[in-house]
């Protein structure tokens, strides 16, 4: 299915945005999304409260190298004798910030280009889409490595790079949606009434494409976190930011495997997996809910039922 078709299938045909089910109703109807959201809230709280709830500092040596999990240190110690639980709590903030801001950069860049391209169309559209076509074929991970090794290791660079790699997906998706909305009667009417382009985009186009943008953003955060751990694992992470990705790298690099110190590697990876999974649960559920083409299936395993005729009098 082309993005164009997808867009046509997804966007509701009315301009009425009030009738759209509110977020809580979506969560109520989709347990998968609700569980995902609940997990994310817990991790967001950990990220926010990190410095207050972590038992130790992220650089504080509190015991022997690769100390085994024990009472004061339930997840053990890493290669520098730092408490892993504390690292995990401090790392939550960094990982989530990288994930969100990376996705945000991608959404802002891709969204702007997609809206301009889709709304104005014509030659500008052609040009912009050619450019995204070229970006789409760049192998993401390799591009990341190249750019990170040229620009140097810092959190800011990682965020920019993630945005750079993923804006193309957003741009294409949003463009095709905007193209559909642009043809709607109320947009045409607004144009005929002489409303400015900016106003039309903000008042009429954006509200229509927003739900799908949000769903995609959620999925993109997962990708961004995934990429951050990958960059960090290849030794290109920010040396000053103990993210979960860097914890995995550190464990691997300092031979946690030969020490048999699973606790240096399993917890951060598990944390990443849980958070990414939560984002994916929320994102795919939202995406599916927005896709009316998934609602009916004409392949049946059960059939319609027969029932007795209703009593004439009871049915009036």
């Amino acid at each position, binding site marked *: *299915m082309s993005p164009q078709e997808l867009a046509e299938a997804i966007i509701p045909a009315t301009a009425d945005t009030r009738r759209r089910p509110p977020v809580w109703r979506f969560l109520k109807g989709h347990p998968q999304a609700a569980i995902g959201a609940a997990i994310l809230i817990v991790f967001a709280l950990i990220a926010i409260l990190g410095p207050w709830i972590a038992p130790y500092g992220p650089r504080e040596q509190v015991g022997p190298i690769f100390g085994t999990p024990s009472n004061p240190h339930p997840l053990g110690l890493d290669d520098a004798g730092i408490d892993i639980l504390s690292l995990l709590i401090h790392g939550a903030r960094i990982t989530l910030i990288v994930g969100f801001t990376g996705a945000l950069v991608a959404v802002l860049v891709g969204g702007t280009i997609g809206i301009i391209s889709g709304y104005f169309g014509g030659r500008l559209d052609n040009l912009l889409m050619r450019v995204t*076509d*070229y970006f789409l*074929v*760049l*192998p*993401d*991970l*390799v*591009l990341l*490595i*190249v*750019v990170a*090794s*040229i620009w140097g290791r810092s959190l800011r660079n990682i965020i920019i790079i993630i945005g750079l790699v993923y804006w193309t997906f957003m741009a294409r998706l949003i463009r095709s949606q905007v193209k559909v909305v642009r043809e709607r009667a109320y947009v045409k009417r607004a144009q005929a009434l002489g409303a400015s382009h900016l106003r039309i985009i903000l008042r009429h186009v954006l509200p229509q494409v927003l739900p799908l943008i949000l769903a995609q953003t959620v999925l993109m955060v*997962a990708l961004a976190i*995934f990429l951050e*751990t*990958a960059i960090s*694992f*290849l*030794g*290109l992470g920010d040396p000053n930011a103990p993210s979960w*990705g860097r914890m*995995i790298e550190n*464990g*691997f690099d300092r031979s946690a*495997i030969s020490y048999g110190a*699973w606790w240096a*590697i*399993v917890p*951060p*990876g598990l944390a*990443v*997996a849980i958070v*990414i*999974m939560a984002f*994916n*649960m929320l994102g*795919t559920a939202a995406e*599916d809910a927005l*896709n009316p*083409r*998934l*609602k*009916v*299936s*004409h*392949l*049946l*395993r059960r059939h319609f039922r027969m029932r007795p005729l209703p009593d004439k009098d009871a049915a009036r």
Partner: protein
Amino acid sequence: MRAGWSYVGRRALFALITILVAISLNFVLFRLAPGDRTSALRCQGCTQEFKAQVRAEFGLDRSVPEQYLVYVKETATGNLGRSFVTQQPVLAELWKPVRNTIPMVLLGTLFAISLGLTLGVVSAWRRGTITDRTSVWSGLLLYSLPTQWLALMLIFYAAGPLGLPTSDIADPYLAYENPGWWPELVDRLQHMVLPAATIGLVLFGEYTLITRSSMLEALGEDYILTARAKGLSNWQIVRRHALRNSLLPIVTLIFLSLGFILGGAILIETVFNYPGIGLQLYESVTERDYPMLQGGFLLLTVSVILMNFLADLLYFRLDPRVTE
């Protein structure tokens, strides 16, 4: 006879232009790095002769546009420069690890395709059943695991019980015994199992999820209802109508991802110390061997572009609608 060969022509042209753009981007990207190809910063252990040779080859004392032209010309003729570390031609240096990576990646991908597609189709067919839920959840889970971490987990928890090697591509002592091709092949395969399993598992999750939703979309189409009205059984409907339509987009997707997988192998090869293109790139990063990095990046980009083109061709073969 379909009047669509112009489509193939245009896709080929697009691929060519994209390759040119990739080459140019590669030039720009590495010009942004501090120093030129031979400065002390980047090529610390290089001899004066080596530097002079590189300077002459790539016209480094000329203006930037001229350098660009020289670079494009050299690249087109297959000269990607020389590695700073080994001082050998980059292309030859890249070829060896690529040769190691391809069978490993293919093994994993085949595993993922055969299992992922089957499970995705079954899952959509049995929508809402236990089978469906199990495969959706396992797909989501596998899709969410960081690749490198999954690889490490396999080393921790699977390698021991299964008696599989966790590092390198072959047993270094085996070569001395000269045991013949069979034990050597077995040894190679054993070294391939864990890396390939990692790729396979990660992709398996992704393929299951995509196939399922593609299949579900197809099953909601009007022509499926028509087929049912015509009295076809569920199996006939799936085999004759739903499968082809739902797998069409998947085929393209798989081809596209093949190109990316080659680059994505970098994480897995690092963990398993598997001497493929990924490990080569990783080492080039740590050793700041820019020509190798630049060459590797170009190689992988071009392979994605070629896969893209192949996908276009395949689509042309499979989908009668592709004509313009």
